[in-house]
């Protein structure tokens, strides 16, 4: 299993645990802006990140020279996904309690970063989805 896949999957596991903690907070009545963060930690931080890691590992080889496509794009995907998600996880609850321009623009930056992570993943994976 390549290093990037191991890091994707281990990070996904951390998000899974973190999301479940958020679930406890929600069940305890702490709700300020946490529900969307809880959902995205689970679906984006855990499920999607796990899939990204496994796709990078197991999909058909891109070529003999570059079996996993661009390693650099893979690392950029990892970095952008996690920076974007963490910024959101911090800024969204704060913004829901005390809206302010700085927090608002943090959410915009997070939105752009997360979209870029998806775009780079698709660009890097597209050529590996092919018939044998």
């Amino acid at each position, binding site marked *: 299993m390549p290093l990037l896949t191991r890091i994707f999957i281990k990070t996904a596991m951390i998000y899974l645990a973190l999301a479940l903690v958020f679930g406890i907070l929600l069940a305890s009545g702490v709700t300020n802006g946490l529900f969307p963060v809880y959902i995205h930690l689970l*679906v984006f931080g855990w499920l999607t990140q796990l*899939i990204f890691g496994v796709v990078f590992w197991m*999909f058909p080889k891109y070529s003999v020279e570059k079996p996993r496509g661009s390693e650099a794009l893979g690392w950029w995907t990892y970095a952008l996904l996690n920076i974007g998600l963490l910024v959101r996880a911090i800024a969204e609850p704060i913004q829901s309690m005390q809206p302010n321009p700085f927090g*608002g*623009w943090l*959410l*915009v930056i997070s939105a752009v970063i*997360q979209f870029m992570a998806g775009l780079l993943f698709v660009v890097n994976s597209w050529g590996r*989805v*092919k018939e044998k």
Partner: protein
Amino acid sequence: MPRLSVWFIRASLLYLLLGFLFGALLLAQKGISFYSPVWYIFPLHMEFLLMGWLVQLTMGVAFWILPRFSIGQSRGNKPLILISFALINAGTLIGILQFWFPVVLLIGRVSEVGAGIVFAAGLWRRVKPHGVL
């Protein structure tokens, strides 16, 4: 990777892009409130990422990697899987029209149920123990 899996997975990647784009617009709207009608795409954000991306990706990968048959069609009943591909995409895409024709949401969901049933029927026998031909 079989051709049908290529179709499923490439379609799922396109839904991933669209779903992420919609999600980015929604999150940005939460931050700076630039265009409040953008909230109309919230149902599409969920539908494209759950059905279009996650469900369709797993269908494509399952058709690719589940055990194959040694005799006859190695991956089972391909026409059924092709029908499920058509139904899941019709069901997901038709949701776009729900803003103008709310009833299409129900039609789309029925189509998705059909996709799930047909897909399960097409792959059922491939979920088998080692050694079964």
